[in-house]
C-alpha cells in the first residue's frame, strides 16, 4: 500500500511540475525542478524501500482493446531500481536546480524542467511496468525525452550530432527489444510479464538465443556495452550540466534494468553459453571503456568512458549470475546478482557525484579540459574533496563504496572453480584478468583526473580569476552523495540484506544468507554454515557491534563449496572505525609527541632551482597517460594527421607539428565496416534508380508476375 501511495505522489508531483512549467507564471524553472523533483525523489525512495521490504504489488491500469492490459507493479527488482533512482534524483534535482538558476540554459529553463520531470516519470514507468507494451511505451518516451534534453539544451560538443546518434542508436535498440518481447509474447500468448515468466521454461534453444541476443544487444545500447557504445561519449559530453548527473545516474541504469528483466528474469538462460557471451561482452566493455577513459583529457568524456567501464562490470556480474543459474549453482548466482546490483547502486551514486563535480569545475573555470586546468584545490577545497571521494570510490578503494561491489564481482569470478566446463572456467579467468587490468587502469585514470584538475599549478589564465568555491546549493547535493559513498562502503552487510529481495526473485536464494552470516545468534539461519564457523568468527570478535548497525552482521563472508573449502571475508564495518581510530592515535602521537616544540615552515616548492616554475613546465594529462597510449597502441591505432618539421636555414628548428587522431575501437571494427558495407550495398541497389520510366514499369510487371505465381502456388 505504501508503495502505491508513494508512486501516486510521485506521478502527481511530476504532473504538477510539468503543468507548472507550461503555465505562464512567475516561478522559474529551477525552483520547479527543485521542489517537484525532490518530492518525487523522496516518493520514489519510499516506494523503493517499501518494495524491498516485501510489499510487492501488481495493478492493471488499463485494458488496451485487442492488445494487452497495461500492468504496473513493484517487484523486488523494480524496488531496487526505484530506490537507486530516488537516491540519485534527490541530489540531482537540487544540483540541476542550482545549474538552472545560474542561467546555464538561458531562457529555456521552463521547457527544460518540464522535459526533465517528464523524463523522471518515464524512468519510473519503465521500472514499474509489468507488461511489455507499457515498458516499450515508457521506453520510447524516455528515449525521446533524453534526446530532447541533450540536443536542445546541450552545451558544448556537437549537440545535434550527439543527439542524433543517441536517438538513432536508441531506436535501433528499441526495435531489437520490441522484437524480443514480441517473440516472448507470441510464445506466451500474452504481453504480461507474469505470463511470459511462466511460459519461459518452454522456449526452444534457438528462440532463447534470439531473445537473448535481441534483448541483450537492444538494452545493451542503452547501457553502453561495447561495441554499441558509440553514442555514449558524445551524448554525455553534449549533455547540459544540469542533466548529466541524471543521465549517468538514472537513465544508464535502465539499460541494465532491461537486461536483468529480460535476460535474467523473464527468460533465464538454460545454457551456460548465453551467460558466457554476456560475461565476455561485459569484461571487454570494462577494459575498452577504461582504456579510452585513461587517455581522454576532457573530464566529461572521460567520465562517459568510465561509465562504459562500470556498465561492463555490472554486466559481468549479471553474466556470471546467468552462467551459474544455468549450471544450477543458485547460491553462487545469488552472489553474482547481488554483486551486480550492488555495483549498480554504487556506480549511480559516485558517477552522479563525479558529474556534479565536473559541472562545478566547469562553472567555476569555463573549461573541462584537464590540460588547461590545475591547482583548483586551493580555490575550491570542498568541491575538490567531493570529487576526491567520488574518485576514490570509483577506484574501488576502501572504505568507500566501490570497494565492496568490485570485490564481490571479482570474488564471483573466482568462484568459477565450481563449474565443470573448462571452457567456462577459461572465459571466467580471462574476464577476471580483464577486470583486474581495468581496475588498475581506473586508478591511473582517476589519479590523473584529480591531480591534473585540482593539484599542481594553475594553468589557464582568465577563467581562474573567477574560480571560487562552488555555492552551497551545489555543494549540498555533492555532500549528500559523498556521505552516501562512505555509508554504502562501510555497511556492505546492510546493503546486501537490502538486495535480498531481488536476489531471491532471480535465484530463489537470498544474498545475505550466503554472504552475511548471522553471527549475532547462535543458531545459524541457513543450514549451509557449520556451527564451527560461527563460533570461530564469534571468537574473532565478529559479534562486536551487535545492535549498533542495522542488518545481520559486520562481516561479508564468502565460502566455497564442499570440494573447495576456502573462505573470503571482509568487514568494512569493522575496518573503517578501526582505521579512523588508528589515524586519530597517530595524529595525537605526532602532534603531542614527535612534533612537539617544532614548527612547520612553509617554503616554495623545490623544482631544481629554476627561477620560476611555470605551468607549462608541469605534467599535462596527456603526458601522464601517454605510457598507456603507447602500451596499448595496437588497440588505439592512431593515425597520423600531421607530422611536420619546419626549419629556418636547415639549422634552426622552428616548429615540430604532430597530431594524431584516434577512432574508437568499436567504430573502427564494427560500425565503419558495417557502414561502408551498407553504403556499398545501397550504391548497388541505387543502380536500379536511374529514372527511366520504362524500366520501372518493367519492375512493376515482374513484381506482379511473381506475386501471381506465388499466390497461385500456395
Amino acid at each position, binding site marked *: 500500500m505504501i508503495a502505491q501511495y508513494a508512486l501516486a505522489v510521485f506521478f502527481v508531483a511530476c504532473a504538477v511540475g510539468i503543468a507548472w512549467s507550461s503555465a505562464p507564471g512567475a516561478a522559474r524553472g529551477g525552483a520547479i525542478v527543485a521542489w517537484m523533483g525532490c518530492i518525487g525523489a523522496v516518493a520514489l525512495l519510499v516506494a523503493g524501500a517499501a518494495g524491498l521490504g516485501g510489499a510487492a504489488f501488481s495493478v492493471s491500469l488499463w485494458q488496451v482493446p485487442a492488445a494487452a492490459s497495461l500492468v504496473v507493479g513493484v517487484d523486488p527488482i523494480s524496488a531496487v531500481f526505484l530506490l537507486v533512482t530516488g537516491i540519485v534524483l534527490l541530489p540531482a534535482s537540487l544540483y540541476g536546480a542550482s545549474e538552472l538558476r545560474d542561467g546555464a540554459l538561458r531562457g529555456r529553463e521552463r521547457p527544460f524542467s518540464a522535459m526533465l520531470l517528464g523524463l523522471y516519470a518515464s524512468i519510473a514507468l519503465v521500472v514499474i511496468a509489468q507488461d511489455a507494451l507499457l515498458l516499450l511505451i515508457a521506453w520510447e518516451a524516455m528515449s525521446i525525452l533524453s534526446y530532447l534534453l541533450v540536443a536542445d539544451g546541450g552545451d558544448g560538443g556537437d549537440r545535434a550530432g550527439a543527439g542524433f546518434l543517441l536517438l538513432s542508436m536508441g531506436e535501433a535498440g528499441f526495435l531489437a527489444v520490441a522484437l524480443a518481447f514480441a517473440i516472448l509474447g507470441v510464445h506466451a500468448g500474452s504481453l504480461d510479464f507474469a505470463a511470459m515468466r511462466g511460459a519461459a521454461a518452454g522456449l526452444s534453444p534457438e528462440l532463447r538465443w534470439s531473445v537473448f541476443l535481441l534483448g541483450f544487444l537492444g538494452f545493451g545500447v542503452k547501457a553502453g556495452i561495447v561495441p554499441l557504445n558509440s553514442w555514449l561519449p558524445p551524448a554525455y559530453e553534449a549533455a547540459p550540466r544540469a542533466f548529466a548527473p541524471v543521465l549517468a545516474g538514472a537513465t544508464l541504469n535502465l539499460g541494465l534494468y532491461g537486461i536483468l528483466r529480460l535476460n535474467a528474469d523473464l527468460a533465464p538462460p538454460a545454457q551456460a553459453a548465453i551467460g558466457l557471451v554476456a560475461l565476455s561482452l561485459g569484461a571487454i566493455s570494462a577494459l575498452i571503456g577504461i582504456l579510452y577513459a585513461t587517455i581522454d*583529457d576532457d573530464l566529461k568524456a572521460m567520465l562517459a568512458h568510465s561509465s562504459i567501464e562500470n556498465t561492463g562490470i555490472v554486466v559481468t556480474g549479471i553474466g556470471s549470475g546467468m552462467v551459474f543459474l544455468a549450471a544450477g549453482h543458485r547460491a553462487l548466482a545469488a552472489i553474482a546478482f547481488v554483486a551486480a546490483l550492488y555495483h549498480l547502486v554504487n556506480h549511480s551514486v559516485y558517477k552522479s557525484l563525479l558529474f556534479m563535480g565536473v559541472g562545478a569545475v566547469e562553472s567555476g573555470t569555463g573549461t573541462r579540459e584537464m*590540460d588547461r586546468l590545475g591547482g583548483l584545490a586551493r580555490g575550491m577545497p570542498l568541491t575538490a574533496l567531493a570529487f576526491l571521494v567520488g574518485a576514490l570510490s570509483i577506484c574501488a578503494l576502501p572504505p568507500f563504496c566501490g570497494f565492496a561491489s568490485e570485490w564481490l564481482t571479482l570474488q564471483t569470478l573466482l568462484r568459477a572453480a565450481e563449474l565443470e566446463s573448462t571452457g567456462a572456467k577459461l572465459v571466467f579467468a580471462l574476464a577476471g584478468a580483464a577486470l583486474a587490468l581495468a581496475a588498475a587502469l581506473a586508478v591511473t585514470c582517476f589519479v590523473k583526473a584529480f591531480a591534473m584538475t585540482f593539484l599542481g599549478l594553475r594553468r589557464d589564465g582568465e577563467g581562474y580569476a573567477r574560480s571560487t568555491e562552488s555555492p552551497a546549493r551545489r555543494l549540498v547535493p555533492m555532500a549528500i552523495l559523498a556521505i552516501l559513498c562512505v555509508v554504502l562502503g562501510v555497511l556492505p552487510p546492510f546493503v546486501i540484506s537490502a538486495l535480498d529481495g531481488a536476489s531471491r526473485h532471480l535465484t530463489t536464494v537470498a544474498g545475505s544468507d550466503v554472504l552475511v552470516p548471522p553471527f549475532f545468534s547462535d543458531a545459524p539461519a541457513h543450514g549451509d554454515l557449520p556451527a564451527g564457523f560461527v563460533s570461530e568468527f564469534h571468537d574473532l570478535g565478529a559479534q562486536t557491534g551487535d545492535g549498533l548497525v542495522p542488518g545481520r552482521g559486520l562481516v561479508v563472508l564468502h565460502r566455497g563449496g564442499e570440494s573447495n573449502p576456502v573462505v573470503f571475508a571482509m568487514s568494512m564495518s569493522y575496518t573503517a572505525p578501526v582505521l579512523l581510530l588508528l589515524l586519530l592515535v597517530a595524529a595525537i602521537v605526532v602532534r603531542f609527541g614527535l612534533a612537539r616544540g617544532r614548527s612547520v615552515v612553509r617554503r616554495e616548492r623545490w*623544482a*631544481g*632551482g*629554476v*627561477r*620560476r*616554475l*611555470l605551468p*607549462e*613546465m*608541469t*605534467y*599535462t*594529462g*596527456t*603526458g*601522464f*597517460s*601517454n*605510457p598507456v*597510449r*603507447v602500451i596499448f597502441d595496437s588497440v588505439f591505432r592512431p593515425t597520423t594527421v600531421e607530422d611536420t618539421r619546419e626549419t*629556418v*636555414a*636547415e*639549422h*634552426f*628548428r*622552428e*616548429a*615540430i*607539428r*604532430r*597530431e594524431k587522431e584516434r577512432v574508437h575501437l568499436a567504430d573502427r571494427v564494427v560500425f565503419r565496416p558495417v557502414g561502408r558495407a551498407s553504403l556499398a550495398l545501397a550504391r548497388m541497389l541505387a543502380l536500379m534508380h536511374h529514372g527511366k520510366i520504362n524500366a520501372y514499369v518493367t519492375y512493376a510487371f515482374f513484381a506482379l508476375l511473381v506475386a501471381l505465381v506465388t499466390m497461385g502456388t500456395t
Partner: protein
Amino acid sequence: MKAVDAATIKEAIEARWPGQASCTFDVSLRLNLARCERASLAGLCREIFREWGFAFAGLVVEEASAGWDLRYMFYGGAAEGWLHVLTSAPFDDAVVPSVAIAGVPAADWDEREAEDMYGVHFEGHPRLGDFILHDDAWQEGVMPMRRAFDAQAALRNRRPAEDWHPRRVVHEPGAFVMPVGPKFSGITESAHFLLETVGEDVIRTWTRLFYKWRAIEKLAEGRLFHDALAIAERFAATTAFAHGLAYCRAVESIARVDVPPRARLLRVFMAEIERLRHHAGSVQEICESTALAVANAQAGMLEEEMLRICGALCGHRYLFGLLRPGGMLCDLSGDACRRALEDSRRVLERMDKLERMLRISSSFLDRIEEVGFISPATAKLYSLLGPVARASGLARDLRREQPYSGYESTRFEVAREEEGDGYARLRVLFFEARQSLGIMEQALAALEDGPVHASFSPGAGAALGWVEAPRGGTFHWVRLNDEGRVARYHVVTPSFVNWHSFHLAAEKFAFQDFPIILATFDLSVAENDR
C-alpha cells in the same frame, strides 16, 4: 670540395671577390688574413667552410677605435693552415650579416655570444638574445664586454623580464616542457635543460647554459700577462694544463719567443698525462651513468690513481703551477718523469682490461649503443672537436694538423670511429688513452738537459694559441698592450663547440637515456660558460 693550399688561397679569394676582399699570407704562422667588406662576408665564409672544407674555430670581436673588428677564424689541415676573415663595422651601424644563416652553422653560438656581450647585431640570425645573459635575469642591451660597461650600475639597474617563457617548437596537444636543473642529479655541474615532451619520450632538448658564467674574459682585461695565466688555467681546471698551455703559446707567439726544447717536451709529457687522467675520468662517468657499479668503482680508482701520479710528479693533482709564458715555472727531473710514466703504464694496463670487460657486458652496451647519435654530416657542419667528432668520422686532431710545442716529431694515430653513438665515443676514449702513453714515452725518450724557461718582455700584439685539449681543440686569442697587460682575451673551448650540437644528439630518446647521453659526451659546463 675544392683542394686549396695555404699559398694559393690569396689568389683564390682575390679572384672571386675582386675589390671586396684582400688577403695577406704570413708564412711563419701559416696564416692567411683575408679582409673583406661586410657585404661579402657571408659569401666568403660560406665558400671557405662549405667548398674549401675548412673548419670554423671561433669568432673574436674586438672594440677598436673606429668600430667593431670581427675576426672569423678557420683552420684546415697541415696543407691549408689557418685562415682568418676580418671585417669591421662602425659603432653607429653595428650590423653584420649573419654567417650562421648563410652556410656556417658552426658560427651560431659565437654570433649569439657576440651579440650578448658586445651588442653587435647579426642580421638574419633568428635566435639572438637570451644566450649568456638570460632574459629572466637581465634586460636586453647590457653588453658587459664593452669598455664603457659599468658593472655596479648594471647590477643596480637590472630588470629581468617578468614574462619569460621557454621557447617551444613542439605543437602537439598535451605537449609540455620538463625542466631539468640547474641543480639536478647527485654531483653534476649546474646547467639547465628544457625537454619538450608529450610524456613518454623527449622530442626536443633545449640547453640553457651559462648559469656558471664568471665573465673571465672581462676579468682578464687589464691584468699583467703573467697574472692572467692564473685565470686561463683555472676557468676549466679539469683540463687546466691544456688551457694554460694555449694561453702561454698565444703570449709566446706575440713575443715571438722560442721555448727551450726541454720545456717543449715536458709540456708534451704533461699534456698527455693530463689527457690520460681526463679520459679515465670520462670512462668513470660513463660507467656511473649506466649504473654499472663495479666498473664505476674500477674506473674511479683509475682516475684517482692518475690524479695521485700527477700530484706526486709535480705537487698538484690538476697540474697547476707548472706553466709560465716562455717555458715552465719549475723543472721536473727525468727520474720523476720516468716513475710517473711507469705508474701510468700500469694504470693503462688496467684500463685496457677494463675495456675488454666492458666490451662483453651486454647490459652495459645496450645502454650506450645507438644512444646520442651525432651524424658525420652534423660533425662537419658544427665543426665539432675532440673525441665526440672523432667518433662521428671527423678524425681531426690539432696535434697532427697544426702541430705545436714538440708534437711536430711525435708519432701517434688519430682515433676514428664511424657510428657516432655513445659506444663509439667510449672506444675513442680508450684508444686515445693508449696513444697518450705512447707519446709520453717518446717525449721522455727525447728529453735532454737544458733550461726550461726563456725570459722575454712582450710588446703589443695579438695572437692565437691553440692546443688539442683532452676534450678537443681549444683556441685562446690574446691581445696585449705595450705594458704587457691583456687588452682582449677570448677563449673558444671544445665544450662550447660541442655543446652546440648536444641537442641534436638528445632528441627522440627516453628520459632515462638523458644522463647517459650527457656522460658519453663528457662536456664541461665550466669550460663552456667561462
